[in-house]
Structure formats: structure tokens, C-alpha cells
């Protein structure tokens, strides 16, 4: 398998949040699959029990999950995570909530007993308050993006961001991002990792 080019940002800690909006659109991670959502949260996303308790709504392939121990992560799964949400519908979408019958038509029911594939790609989406809770760890681990999505995202970064950006490296070598932008082609896959200068120290 060919190694994916990787782009590393080291930024001042307050600037980490600039990357959080990428997480609501979804990022790919290469990881172990064929495990329960609960195991995936604990082992792949390194979420502690406090964090898991805050994840009140979980969507697997667009369906609301009630039981995180039985729902299985597979190659190609899309997993979205949200904190507690307002409104009747927010309450309805909570895992195992009193109103879950309101959305029977879109509740996730696991059909597979096991999966044979052991490693694969999972698309992760992280919303609202969980961005700050889970985003730094996920971004430090590294997420895959299409080059065009990355370029579009970078084009929207402010002058203040670039002032606070301590270092950028492409495949472990310092890089001028203006030059990098010209050398990336739509469709290329890039592994993006972001860490704070504080974490690096």
C-alpha cells in the first residue's frame, strides 16, 4: 500500500478550534474496524467514560444508535457524534431516550453478527460541544481529507491564523503552503494532523 502524503500543522493552542469546523463535515480515519461503537470510541478515538457519557446522540450510517455495545463499525461506516441537543427532536435522537419510539423509522438495527474486514476507513463527524472535547485528540492522531477539501478549508483561514501558525511540514519537511497548494491535485488524499505548540512541548 502506498503511503499517504501527510501535512502537519503545529499551531498556538487557541487556533486548534479553527480546524473544528472540518470535523462537522466529516473526516476519514484509517483504523481497526469490526468492533462495536463503544469499543471504537474507547480504543480508536481514545474517549474516556466521561466523554462517552457526554455523547448523547450517535448516528451510524445516518441512523440513530441506541445500543453502542451491539452496533458494529465496518469498513466505510459513517459515524457522527453529538452532545445533548435541544428540542423534542433533540431528545428524540438521544441514545436510549424515552422518546426513541418517535424515530423508529430511522433507528439503527444491527444486522451483521461479525465482519471479516479488520482494518478500513471510517468517516467521523463530530458536532457541537464535542468538537472541543474530542477534536484535539483526533486532529493530533491525523485525519484524511481530499486535497480539494483541504485547499478550500485553508483558503478560508484568516491572517490571524497564519500569524499563530508555528510550523507546517509536508512529509516531515518544512513546507511553504503557497507552494504546496500549487502542487496538490484534486482527488489526492492527504493525511492532516494538527497539534498545539503546547502539546508538542
Amino acid at each position, binding site marked *: 500500500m502506498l503511503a499517504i502524503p501527510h501535512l502537519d500543522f503545529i499551531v498556538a493552542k487557541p487556533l486548534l478550534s479553527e480546524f473544528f469546523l472540518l470535523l*462537522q463535515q466529516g473526516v476519514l480515519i484509517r483504523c481497526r474496524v469490526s468492533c462495536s461503537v463503544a469499543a471504537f470510541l474507547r480504543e480508536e478515538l481514545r474517549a474516556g467514560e466521561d466523554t462517552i457519557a457526554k455523547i448523547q446522540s450517535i448516528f451510524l450510517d445516518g441512523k440513530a444508535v441506541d445500543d453502542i455495545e451491539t452496533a458494529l463499525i465496518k469498513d466505510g461506516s459513517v459515524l457522527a457524534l453529538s452532545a445533548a441537543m435541544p428540542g423534542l427532536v433533540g431528545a428524540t435522537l438521544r441514545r436510549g431516550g424515552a422518546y426513541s419510539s418517535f424515530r423508529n423509522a430511522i433507528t439503527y438495527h444491527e444486522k451483521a453478527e461479525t465482519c471479516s474486514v479488520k482494518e478500513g476507513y471510517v468517516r467521523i463527524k463530530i458536532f457541537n460541544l464535542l468538537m472541543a472535547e474530542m477534536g484535539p485528540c483526533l486532529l493530533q492522531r491525523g485525519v484524511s481529507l481530499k486535497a480539494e477539501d483541504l485547499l478550500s478549508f485553508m483558503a478560508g483561514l484568516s491572517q490571524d491564523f497564519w500569524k499563530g501558525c508555528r510550523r507546517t511540514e509536508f512529509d516531515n519537511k518544512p513546507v511553504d503552503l503557497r507552494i504546496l497548494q500549487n502542487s496538490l491535485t484534486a482527488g489526492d488524499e492527504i493525511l492532516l494532523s494538527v497539534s498545539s505548540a503546547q502539546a508538542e512541548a
Partner: protein
Amino acid sequence: MDKILRIDVGAKGGPKATAVPVGDYAGLGGRAMTSAIISKEVPPLCHPLGADNKLVIAPGLLSGTASAMSGRISVGCKSPLTGGIKEANSGGQASQVLARLGYSAIVLEGKPKSDDLYKVFVNKDGVRISADNSLRMLTNYDLVAKMKAEYGEKMCCISIGPAGEMKMGAATVAFTDMELRPTRHAGRGGVGAVMGAKNIKVIVLDDTGMAMRPPKDPEKFKDANKRFVDGLKKHPVTGQGLPAYGTNVLTNILNEVGGYPTYNFKQGRFDGAAAISGETLAETEKKRGANPTHGCHRGCVIQCSGTYNDKDGHFLTKQPEYETVWAHGGNCGISDMDKIAMMDFLDDNYGIDTIEMGATIAVAMEAGLAKFGDADAAISFIHEVGKGTDLGRILGNGAALTGKAFGVERVPVVKGQAMPAYDPRAVQGIGVTYATSPMGADHTAGYAVTANVLKVGGDVNALKPEGQVELSRNLQIATAAIDSTGMCLFIAFAVLDQPDTFQALLDLLNAFYGLNLTGDGVTDLGKMVLKMERDFNKAAGFTPQHDRLPSYFKTEKFAPHNVTFEVKDEDLDKVFNW
């Protein structure tokens, strides 16, 4: 709050105000007050814009006190949009001020004898009503600026924009917020048209010199209020999620789960959702120097509102709510947040319901009047409404009329009122409430605490198919009760999860009024309100066939999950069997 201010707009010599004792309506507030007066005093078969209809504006039971979250105000009438009873409620300052002035309601009644437009000024010394035709067709922002120049900054306004004057079915009644901006609206059902039919352009309230309403037991009241506030602050929704992002935080999850009505309810996902999500909105607001965490009235501790600045950092509008962003955004295929914010401002300024207007524009787009995604066309449609052009008169009367005028079959309304931002095929339980609420399709009608706290009708087995009907019933009962307290419905999240916070709410009411209200008492209040409303609608000609979703929701599969609405008609008919 021991008197009702009745204004007979048809009196000889011009509108005449009379303060009368609250009488039979004692102990009622908010929605209970509006629905009680409408059901007792308004003939159900009357014309909504005629002499017999009344517009009732009522603060909640705890408005004007030191209680947190007690600043909602209800507006009731026979609706020009649905033809049934209507209660629409709003934030803003008026509820607290009206209550401190001692009024448990303002009732506008009768038929004007002339075309003159009136303003009403209420303060501790009484009521002054004067004709002022210079206010004609003023937008809400211009009107409030004029009132500020005339009455100073220690007042608040209840007003209508041009849409109300033109008696449109989507017209709102506007309420000024803490900054004296007309950003809060009793939006649904055309209540602004009824105020317009009474020729009252604005009611200015000034409570200078009036004290906060004193509780019967100050110590218990103070203790209950502290527990209530603590409960709201410690809950993740009311203490964190709503303050950080506002209600638009729902966009991402509704879209993810495929329940976000897009392109006039054609599909459940919108490609542009991330660009208009609450997360993106809050980030944009912060970068532009606006404030994503702000209350809509004094005494709010949830702070789910906010302000939205334009690209140059100037105030454009309040932080648009989820329903507004959806109605003008995904439902019309629009993902430009600045354009959506502009539409929010225009709706507030002309005095139009954002949900009805967004749904109407989507129907107009389906009719081919513009392409989905054309934000400039959508903005021009709102201007048409504000100017009262022929097209604007159609659009300003809502989605149902627009669908008829342009021959569109797919019109998402119940009882003539447009559905809000949750597709009933994906979340079928909310479809039960859309179908059966006396208000027409309304996302707040079944919003609040339920069986597990109140034990309405015993424990509900939510896993049974009929559980959806039972839950909807209980939610509607509880919502009617909360709407009657004047409490913001968003307290429901904390009350739902934390029985001690629900108890704190009961203790607040008990300490203030010297009562011994229990959960059962709250349930009885909710049932009483719903029964009055259902009886009114029945007498107005509503039948079980009006408690239905449009038939295409049963047949058109809704992507991505390809689901249809499957709750049976006979089950819908059981919702109000208690």
C-alpha cells in the same frame, strides 16, 4: 396582575380603554388566559378579521417576578391562517413589563369605525390612545425608532409591520428585546393580521415606577428560584449547548439523520448544511464581533439567542433560530448564511413569520417562480410581501394559499399552517403532533416534559407502536401547561431530565401564589387548555379529517431512508382520548 385591559376599537369617538377586574380568568396566564378568553368570548364561526374576533395578549403566571425564564408572552385569537384557535408566543421585554403594570391581559376587541391607525401608550398612570397615521406602513425597526424618539428608551413595544396592516395570514406581532429591537415575534398563525384588523399599530409599555411583583412567601420563592436556576445551569442543553450555539445547533444532527426537510420537503439531507450550521454560525458571529450568547429578555439564564453582524461588523439581525435558518436555508436550497440572515431581518422588519415565509418561498420555487438555491430571488419575494404587490399578497398569506394560487400539490401544511423544520416521515412522533395539535403544524406544541416526570395517564411503553400517540398526547398536555406559566419552553430540557428542577418550578409557582400545586395540577391545567382549544375548533367546523398530514407524506418516500409516514388515522384519532 388583577386586571385586564380591554380596548374597544369600535367605540364611539375612537378606541376606548377600560381596565376591568380579572374575574373568572383569575389564576390563568399565558396560553391558558388567551385560550380561555377566545373560547369563551369569540364565536367560533366568526370571521378572523371581523368585529367578533379578539386579540388577547397575556403575560405568564410568573412574568414580572424575580423568577428566571418567566418572560414569555402569549398572543391568542381565531387565526386567519388556520381558521381555528391560535396561541403564538414570544420572548422580548413586554411580558415582564405588562405584568409589572398589573395587567394579566390586553384584549383588543370590536371593529374600527374609521381607517385611522392608532398607538396605545400604557404606564403606571393609565392608558393613552391616539390616532397617528404617520405610522402607516412603517416597518417594525422604523416604527420602534420613532417610538423611542417619542417615549424614550425605558419602554418596550408590541407592534405590527406592513404585513400586519395588510392583514396577511403570515403576519406577526413583534416584541422588542432588551436592546429595543423588534426581534422577537409571536410568529405563527397570522396573529399580526388580527392586530392590523383592529387598526392598532403599536402598544408602548412603560413600567417606570412599578415594582417587581412580590411573592406570597419570599423566602421559599427565593430558594425555589435558586434551585431552578442551578438546575438549568447544570444541564448540558440549557447550561452549555444552547448558550454556545443557539437552537441552530440542530442543523447538523437533523441533516445527519436524514430528517432535515430540503427542497420543499423532497429529501432529508442538504449538501450545504455545514455552511449554515449552528457551529459555523457561532464561529462567524465571534469573528465578526457579534455575540452568540445572549438572552431575549431580562431574567433569561439560558441565553440561547445572539446577534449577527454583517461582513463589515455591523448589526444585521438577531441570531437566526434553527427554524428560520432551515426555512430560508435548506428548505429553499440556500446555503449563504449572510443572505439567510438578511431574510431573517426582512421578516422581522415587515412583520412576517419566518417559518411560514420560508415554507411559502419553497412552494413558490416548486411552482417555478424561482430556482431552488436562488437567494436573491427569495429576498425579492420577501420585499414583494413587504410592499404588498399582487404577488406579495399571495405569498404573505402563506404556503397553503400560494400552493393553491400556483397549482402546487406538494404543500407541507396542516390546518393551513406550514410545517416546521423536522420531517414527520423521519421523526414520526412529531408528525403525530403536527397532525393533531389544535394550532396546526407546530413544532412547539408537543415539546415539553412527559410521562416519566408527570405520569400523565400512567407509564407509557414507548416501544409499542401506540407509544407515539400516547407520548404526543402527554407532550401536548405538558406543553400547554408550560405555555401557561410564561416560562420559556426551553426549560423543558432540564425539567425533563431532572425531577428536582421540575419540583423547583412547582415550588416557584406555589411560593408565589401560596398554592399547593402538584404534578397532577400541572397536568390538569394542560388538559383544560387543550380541551378548550379542541372544543373551539370543533365548533369552528374542524373534524378528525383536519387532524391529518397531507396525503403525500404517506406515499412519497423520503430519502435517504426512504420512509413514509405510517401512523394510522385511527391512531391519530386517539390522541385526545384521556
